[in-house]
């Protein structure tokens, strides 16, 4: 088997906990990542890089989904209207 061993249950939970703390910080600062740098670093240190990427995408998707639900789909404006 190539590379490092998969995270154990304890390591997974530590990662998810750090992620949740980071996301709670983002939630309470209107997604201003600059306000949450310490928690971001903790999140990155507790989780494999691949998982950080995965969870970043998940958050983007959840935000997009929420936006669709609350604002509705708005097609991008065309550069020059006819």
């Amino acid at each position, binding site marked *: *088997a*190539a*590379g*490092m*061993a*998969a995270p154990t249950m304890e390591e*997974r939970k530590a990662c998810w906990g750090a992620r949740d703390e980071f996301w709670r910080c983002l939630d309470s600062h209107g997604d201003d990542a600059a306000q949450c740098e310490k928690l971001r670093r903790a999140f990155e240190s507790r*989780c*494999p890089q*691949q998982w950080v990427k995965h969870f970043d995408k998940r958050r983007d998707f959840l935000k997009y989904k929420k936006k669709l639900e609350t604002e509705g789909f708005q097609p991008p404006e065309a550069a020059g209207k006819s």
Partner: protein
Amino acid sequence: GVAAGWLYLRHQKERQRRERRLHHLRSLSLGQGNFQLQDTSGAARSKADFRGRWVLLYFGFTHCPDVCPEELEKLSRAVRLLEADPALPPVQPLFITVDPERDDAAALARYLRDFHPRLVGLTGSAQQVREAAAQFRVYVSAGPRDDDGDYVVDHSVLTFLLDPDGIFRDCYSRSRTAEEVARSVRGHMDSYEPLAP
């Protein structure tokens, strides 16, 4: 006499109904074939080895960020709910890796320790695993590797129910709860009719 003739006709009708139902299940052609894999002790296990048992089967991988532990937790809980009813036959929880490159017997044993004690983990060569996944039409796509060689595997998230004849009966997505899965399995057990010997 007349009674014997009538009983015979009723029996025939039953048999035809059963065969039509089986034909329909087979026409769904999910879970056909006989996968050949190895369990965490290295022993060869095929799908046929699990005949005689209801099986709840999940495809995943040990480096999975969150979905697989959650689905395995749910699977374990569904099995425990069913176990709580002594009138029901036992259910065999089964895990097949979609990442045989990293998930060898030792890796699977370590990973599955945290879930149901009777959960059996299967791995194999890349080809064997590919074939098993294809038999259940499970989508598998390994992502790009980072500098450490780590990667995630994108895959269909489904738990499959097989009956004691090894025939696919149902599948459960991420949105189904453990309670819903257990209830559904119980329903299938109630309506199950064994194939003629």
